């Protein structure tokens, strides 16, 4: 079997990308970029990268963006704000200038971390879910067995290597492509797409990792938010809930950000309950003393 010279070049690109990503994380805590015209280069994918996809029921192309490693979204303190970049120019190219108010557009994010640093298969999954109403946390996706999650990982890797890797980036975002909705595109793995069955995302998430869940709906994606969950395999057969990591949002100017919203800890719940009980106790005492008086 032939091995072409491109092999080394791709490997170097992968290494450069890893280095660049590490540097970006160290310097800024996130991979923010400004949408300015740059050289269009072949995009690369590294295990553990998360994709963010945008599609419209009325468009022939979708927009697929490799937003970087999962690790930038994990173990963040509550209240952390990450600015991921501005994609207005690309969304305008794909969906038109009124993309922000177009109620046929859906967006979502998913990824797989297939192997640990030792090469062991771990199949950690990452997927978003639309908030039912802004500010209300989506119910978490459930964790599945290693085998089950491996099935999903295979689907995401098919998108990564046959739908994304090696394609030419947009002029505005070195890690994103505009692709026909057919073949092995982001859209093809979403409900109604050719590479998924039963109206699910990646043959797994029912109904979808996207917001809004159905189109046409609402007044555009800036009025939606996506909660991101880390879905580690669970082989106990109980399918416990996955872990909430934070929330993606996009404003009408095309700025995409990730925020870790404060989720009450169990101890906080305990304090609140204790405080409530104490207040009830005090009120009752006061009422009793008033009656006695």
């Amino acid at each position, binding site marked *: 079997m032939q091995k072409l010279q491109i092999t080394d070049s791709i490997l170097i690109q992968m290494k450069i990308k890893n280095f660049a990503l590490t540097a970006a994380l160290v310097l800024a805590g996130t991979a923010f970029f400004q949408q300015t015209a740059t050289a269009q280069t072949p995009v690369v994918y590294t295990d553990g990268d998360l994709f963010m996809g945008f599609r419209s029921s009325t468009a022939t192309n979708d927009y697929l963006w490799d937003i970087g490693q999962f690790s930038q979204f994990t173990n963040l303190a509550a209240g952390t704000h990450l600015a991921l970049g501005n994609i207005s120019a690309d969304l305008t190219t794909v969906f038109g200038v009124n993309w922000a108010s177009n109620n046929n557009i859906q967006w979502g994010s998913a990824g797989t971390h297939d192997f640990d640093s030792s090469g062991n298969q771990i199949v950690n999954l990452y997927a978003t879910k639309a908030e039912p109403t802004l500010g209300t946390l989506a119910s978490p996706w459930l964790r599945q067995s290693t085998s089950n999650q*491996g099935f999903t990982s*295979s689907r995401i890797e*098919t998108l990564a290597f*046959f739908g994304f890797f090696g*394609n030419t980036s947009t002029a505005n975002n070195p890690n994103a492509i505009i692709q026909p909705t057919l073949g092995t595109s982001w859209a093809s793995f979403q409900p109604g797409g050719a590479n998924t069955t039963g109206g699910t995302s990646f043959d797994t998430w029912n109904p979808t990792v996207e917001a809004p869940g159905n189109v046409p709906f609402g007044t555009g994606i800036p009025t939606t938010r996506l909660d991101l969950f880390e879905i580690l395999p669970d082989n106990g057969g109980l399918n416990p809930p996955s872990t909430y990591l934070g929330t993606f949002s996009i404003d009408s100017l095309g700025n995409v950000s990730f925020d870790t919203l404060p989720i009450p800890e169990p101890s906080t719940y305990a304090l609140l309950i204790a405080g409530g009980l104490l207040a009830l106790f005090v009120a009752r005492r006061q009422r009793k003393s008033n009656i006695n008086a």
Partner: protein
Amino acid sequence: MKLIRTLTLGALALGCLSVAQAQTPIRITGSTAFRGTALTSILNIFDPSPAVQYGYTGTTYTSSKAAIFLGNIGGNSVKLKTSWSGSEGGIQTVSGQITVKFLPDGVAVSTGGTSGLPDPTVAGNANSPEVPDIAFSDTFQSSSAFSGTFFGVNYPALNSSVTTTGTTNQIIGIVQFKWIAGRSIPANFTNMTSQLARNLYSIGSAGVALWTGSTDHATKVFAIGRDIDSGTRLTSFAETGLGAKAVVKQFEPKTGGVRVTTAGGTISTLTLWPLEFVNGIVEPPGNGGYSSGGQLAAAVNNFPPANSLLVGYSGTGDADPQITNNASTGATELSYNGVTLGKPENPDLISEGAYTFWGYEHLYYRDSTPSDVATVADTLALRILNTDAPAPKFAAMQVSRNTDGAVVIQKY
């Protein structure tokens, strides 16, 4: 007068030289699953006189990895070379005009065929990198990754404006596939379903209970497969609903730290196929596989490690030599969705639509292929279509499908 005679003789000599030099080079690559039929047919299209001289790698002509032929086709002198890279590799290298390693000029040939030539695709062996002209493919180019732009390279449509008169979409026959299981399988391990294939190849291994209904959760079945240059792989994944371009998990059988490529031994380890690059295309860990159907079928025909069983997919030509249907002595043919193709194959099961693990064999070349090469390609295509293709022939099919893995529908 003497001068005129000298000039005439000189002109004749130059003419002879130019005839000798006008040997048309033709390079053929592509499907390993169909190479047996292709090689048989290649010999059949050479003129009987002067007798074709040829040489090939390995010991069996019809399963050789590479070969070279010197002779005449339709009265024209031809130097024809074959090097089988897999169907997808064939489409990629013919459309993208990427070199393939062929046998070098000057190797030993004879009228009866000289065997044992060194495989030019093996590192260290003499080879001649040449752009192939013709690709045999088990799949439609439209199903292939090498259609349009892929990894920044443009792969133009083959035979888009120049086609072989007498063929439909360059289809020359039916290529047939089988699921095979390795040694040590239990007696009730007899069938492969689309569902099981999707499960097994998405993950790489699955419990044997899924096949047998037993409560044995300790023994696992491991997926063995081909690399992305393979049309057999594409057909297998398209047919089972996994997706023609699915990224999967396949295992690499090793003995003593060396990849197993022969039959009859004992495999010591099974690990995910390591990351590799095939013709510049990255194959992440687990997604790689054998570059040859023959090696895959042979590898499956081994005793697996404890608590392990092996399953693979293969063209019938590569599978049949390994099949004994006795788990102690060889590989076992699995029925597919409950239908057993058999050994020898029952062509009615395919032509009537009961067995669906098959594809259309195509013969592709570039629109820009020189006319003398295209003429030979057309001759070969029609010879296979009308005479040499194994049963069922394309014309005998009572069912059809619109693309690889598509629903099989009756034609009547």
